[in-house]
């Protein structure tokens, strides 16, 4: 595939990803409302929210926080670009991690106790899902002998039948990144939480909008990684179905469970995630998958 084509697709990804992310958030809110017996906001609601936030008065708790906020957004966009350029999957993930760490440091850089606790919990959350995300790459590499995304596209065979255990582990990660019950501990989608959206308490107005957009990028990136599990020639559309399907499962789980505590989350994700991926790696090595 020509370099020009790749660069073009990266540009398109940077522009389209937040649009898809926002739209998914809108559909998410609508579907959640329907599951709760309500009508719910219009699908374009997230865009209204973000545009409105851009129109709000600027207010920042500390310059440092601002820097970290921008760094978070930039790094996430970079990760998306690297993904679109079909670069090394490990590089994409590490850039993503760095971005997330900046978000947590941003929250920790202000004095508000809610923000502090939120940042603290974000780090715990990070501790819970990053190992899983990183480990999930290993079976892919084992299967294809390469970490490059381009290889996955070229391999010509779907990964899901061999790596479905890792796929399930990634679903847990998706739920955490989307901040859904039972994992929404650091900054809840639901306002009625003990930390008052702890992580972003001190971001206001346009800066909150930036964080929101970065979240959209992050979600789309995660969904794309899930989609990688079925990118083969003629059935490429299945990858989109898989990504959206997993997204929908997360929504349902969100609606049938209460929020749990961070200690539980850490235990659960590590035990479930690592054992799933571990057995996946084992099976590949044994030649069963």
């Amino acid at each position, binding site marked *: 595939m020509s370099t020009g084509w790749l660069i073009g697709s990266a540009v398109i990804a940077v522009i389209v990803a937040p649009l898809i992310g926002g739209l998914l958030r809108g559909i998410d809110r609508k579907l*959640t409302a329907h*599951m*709760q*017996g*309500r009508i719910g906001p219009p699908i374009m609601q997230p865009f209204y929210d973000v545009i409105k936030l851009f129109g709000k008065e600027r207010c920042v708790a500390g310059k440092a926080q601002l820097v970290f906020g921008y760094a978070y957004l930039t790094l996430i966009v970079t990760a998306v670009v690297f993904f679109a350029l079909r670069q090394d999957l490990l590089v994409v993930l590490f850039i993503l991690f760095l971005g997330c760490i900046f978000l947590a440091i941003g929250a920790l850089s202000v004095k508000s*106790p*809610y923000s*502090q*606790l939120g940042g*603290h919990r974000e780090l715990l959350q990070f501790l819970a899902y990053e190992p899983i995300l990183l480990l999930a790459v290993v079976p892919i590499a084992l299967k294809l002998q390469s970490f490059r995304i381009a290889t996955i596209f070229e391999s010509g065979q779907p990964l899901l039948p061999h790596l479905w255990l890792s796929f399930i582990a990634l679903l847990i990660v998706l739920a955490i990144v989307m901040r859904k*019950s*039972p994992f*929404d*501990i650091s900054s*809840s989608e*639901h*306002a*009625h*939480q*003990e930390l*008052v959206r702890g992580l972003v308490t001190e971001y206001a107005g346009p800066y909150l909008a930036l964080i929101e957009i970065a979240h959209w990028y992050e979600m789309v990136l995660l969904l794309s990684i899930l989609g990688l599990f079925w990118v083969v020639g003629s059935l490429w559309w299945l990858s989109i179905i898989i990504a959206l399907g997993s997204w929908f499962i997360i929504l349902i789980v969100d*609606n*049938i*469970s*209460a*929020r*749990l*505590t*961070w*200690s*539980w989350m850490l235990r659960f994700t590590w035990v479930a995630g690592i054992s799933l991926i571990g057995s996946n790696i084992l099976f590949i090595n044994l030649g069963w998958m």
Partner: protein
Amino acid sequence: MARTVIPFGPQHPVLPEPIQLKLELEDETVVGVMPIIGYIHRGIEKAAELNDFRQNVFICERICGICSFIHALTYCEGAEAMTSVEVPPRARFLRVFWSELSRTHSHLLWLGLLADSMGFESLFMQIWRAREMILDISEMTAGHRIIQSTCIIGGVRRDIDKEMAKEVDKRLLAFKEMLDSTIAPVLLRDPTIKRRAVGKGMLSKEQAELLGAVGPTSRGSGVAIDIRQTGYAAYKEVGFEPVVETAGDSYARTLVRAREVYQCVELMRKALSMMPEGEILVRVDGYPEGEAMSRTEQPRGELIYYFRGNGTNNLERLKIRTPTFANIPTLLVMLPGCEMADVPVITLSIDPCIACTER
């Protein structure tokens, strides 16, 4: 992480009302707690001395919007004792009906808030949807969704005729069916709810007695105190047995309230079916003189009014002890040692009603 002090409240989304809990945290474990109250003190006790004793019904009703009818009832019971008024029997049964209606809607409200504080939004929505059915009954019988304002000294102001009673009965059955089919199974079975509530906020029977806990808070710890047993209004005729759980944790308190909702529905239906024909209001002559106490069971526990009159139009003293006031000290036992994430659940488990407490 060093010790952090988190101001929990007075404005906080989990608490619909302002109470401040200064939580001392070590990492995420609560090691100390200091409730600070007084944000919505209005001075109703003093205002009651300034008003005509008949007007006080309406101000007492607005001590708390959730259990307003029971406040009015307690005031009226005391005022009637002081002016030696005999309330007609039909009015006494109607008072039971509206008391239980208030209790039902209060418990449902609380169950919803609990689900919400656990982050279980869809359950919150379902419970509040069921609650709307109760509010519809309130609006149909009393003319208002939450502040019924039907109780006055000497009886009640509105009657429920046969046709309406039939309709109410029908709606109550529909309501019960909804509880059975949607809410009760989730409350009982959902593992995430149990994980958040079972074993959280332990209050042993001895502690409950030592701290003078009342209402569902004490009944969740196995202390069977329920003032309805004294048989005020028409509770003696309707018949009543307190609901008790013994585990003493948040889940036990949840179950007490959930079971009481069922009990309330039964009591309401009984009150309507047993109601005799006759007057609903008698004329009140004379002015309050001497002293009186009146006690009732609010959704949150025992409510005590103390009256002192001097034979004039105004009361000399009105003292109100609300149930949450008696239950707040239990937080000092329940909170230390828990995780920050459990604070809302445990705080809510005593069903704090700050508007009552601070009057």
